[in-house]
């Protein structure tokens, strides 16, 4: 049974130093999968490479190559070994990797998505209060998150959290769940996860754990601290909504998310639009993300670049 330990163990990248991109390891993962490990340090460069490699492998429409799943520093490849022998797959992977790593910069198409969030909302406050009553007494999550990050209070954390774009490094675990890192080095934070995890979480809650932000696509157990709630689904089978006409999940690895703080009145208004099937997500799909330009910009801030660099 999938349990709460799975959530509690999600790693904490906040102390990660950086290192150069190193070699590709093709690791066995049964007779239908291989895992491509691009490195063992958490770094944005490796995540960009993982997303590129995952996409590139699908491009030729190779028979027997079923799907690829990029995560922070790895790509899982799902293939039909009766149609595509492992030796041939390895050759395809090596060729794609050589081609990608020969480019000087790492660039990737990256959508910008604006997501309305009711920070410090009443529903996630209730969820935290219930945990505090039934599991273990804790202070309210936004107050705790602000305190451990040396901020004046919840409102200061909301300003920090909504001032940066968040990079979607991977999607999954639960359908459509994004793992996001803040791109602006001035907006990084770090917070321990729940111990023990919550047994349930408000659907569409925005949570922070380690240096990550995530959104709960549905009511599930959870280990992140809850700071707000979005009125819009990130996973839906309602094809009336334009964003879900062709896929059931909103986010893709390589997306950038900007959270827009909203109040209760706007939350209710957007929720009605979602219920009516008329809500239009704000998605801009014309940017190329450049690692070298990002690094130059981050360096120009004069602050330590931290884990996201």
């Amino acid at each position, binding site marked *: 049974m999938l349990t709460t330990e799975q959530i509690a163990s999600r790693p904490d990248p906040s102390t990660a130093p950086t290192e150069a991109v190193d070699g590709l390891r093709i690791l066995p993962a049964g007779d239908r999968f291989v*895992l491509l490990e691009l490195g063992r340090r958490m770094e944005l460069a490796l995540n960009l490479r993982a997303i590129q490699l995952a996409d590139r492998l699908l491009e030729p429409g190779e028979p027997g190559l079923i799907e690829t799943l990029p995560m922070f520093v790895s790509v899982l490849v799902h293939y039909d070994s009766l149609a595509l022998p492992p030796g041939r797959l390895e050759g395809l992977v090596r060729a794609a990797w050589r081609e990608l790593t020969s480019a000087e910069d790492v660039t990737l198409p990256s959508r910008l998505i604006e997501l309305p969030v009711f920070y410090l909302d009443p529903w996630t406050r209730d969820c935290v209060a219930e945990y505090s009553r039934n599991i273990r007494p804790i202070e309210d999550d936004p107050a705790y998150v602000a305190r451990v990050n040396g901020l004046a209070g919840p409102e200061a954390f909301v300003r920090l959290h909504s001032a940066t774009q968040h990079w979607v490094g991977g999607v999954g675990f639960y359908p459509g769940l994004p793992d996001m890192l803040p791109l602006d080095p001035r907006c990084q934070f770090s917070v321990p996860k729940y111990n023990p995890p919550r047994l349930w979480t408000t659907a569409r809650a925005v949570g922070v754990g380690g240096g990550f932000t995530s959104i709960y696509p549905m009511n599930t157990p959870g280990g992140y601290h809850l700071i707000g709630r979005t009125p819009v689904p990130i996973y839906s089978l309602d094809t009336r909504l334009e964003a879900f006409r062709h896929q059931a999940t909103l986010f893709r690895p390589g997306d950038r998310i900007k959270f827009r703080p909203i109040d209760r009145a706007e939350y209710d208004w957007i929720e009605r639009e979602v219920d009516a099937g008329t809500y239009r997500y704000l998605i801009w799909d014309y940017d190329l993300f450049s690692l070298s330009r990002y690094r130059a910009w981050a360096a120009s801030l004069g602050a330590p670049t931290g884990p996201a660099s």
Partner: protein
Amino acid sequence: MSNRACVLQPGLQTTVQDYPGRVGFWRVGIPPSGPMDSLAFRLANLLVGNPPGAAALEMQFTGPTLRFEAAATVALTGGDCGATLAGAAVPHWRSLDVAAGQELRCPALRAGARAYLAIRGGIEKAAVLGSRATFPRGGVGGEALAAGASLGWPDTDPPRHGWRVAPGRIPHYAGEIDVAITDGPHVDWLDETGRATFLGAAWKVSGQSDRTGVRLIGPKLSFSRQAIDKPPEHGVDPSNVINTGYPIGGINLCGDTPIILPFDGPSQGGFITPYVVASAAMWKVGQARPGQILRFTRVPVDAAIELRRALEVRASALSLQRVADGAVE
């Protein structure tokens, strides 16, 4: 009159599945679902003349009671659930004719964890993301059957009578289960002792097992240097790794507990995968009951591919014979 069966009792968790399920959404965390035992599932469909992957029922430990409002040809496979039709015992692994008005009861599995019921024509259900499989945990493709639900199936040509699975091809689910595995991406995160312990142990299936994970109870494993002395972003526990995609059938090590991740499992996470169940052995995992013992045999990837080739033959019409004919094996 429409082809309809009423669900009088739903059973513990009875779901509509198809095979191979909802493939192609692993990247965004939507699992394939589909039958936990694809061998018994495909044979049930073939017995009634359906394509092997057609929508059929999976029942777990306790099956449903159905009242057929129209005549149908059906087949039960998988664990023996002590089924009765209009009060009389009926066999598994062969096609059965059901008359309108008859009740089919599937009270409790005596061996194995799951049984399958195929209806000629295939169960009617709207496809979600290209599949009729049910992922109850994520609400994709609906939920498990509830009392009062009804099942429909299309009109078909007259049924083919009297097919059965050749007796030598019927799997046995009782006793210790030998499961072929291959190395996983993190096999070297266990030390030599840890690997020997894993491969030598009798692993007991935990009662906390379901379609999202089969938990195993057994000895504590020991780790190699790279599990202990690793960059901090991997997490604190030796079994933690930077979040990575999980292969289906992966044996995930969650602290000290191995969890086999089947067809409704999580797509990614922060635990190591030292071994992966051969795809041809997943049906055995799907039939493992709480308390039953699993033993693992490590095979090379090439051998696992050959096992799969052999399973494809076993899960085909080549395993069927007419009831009147003699046994093939």
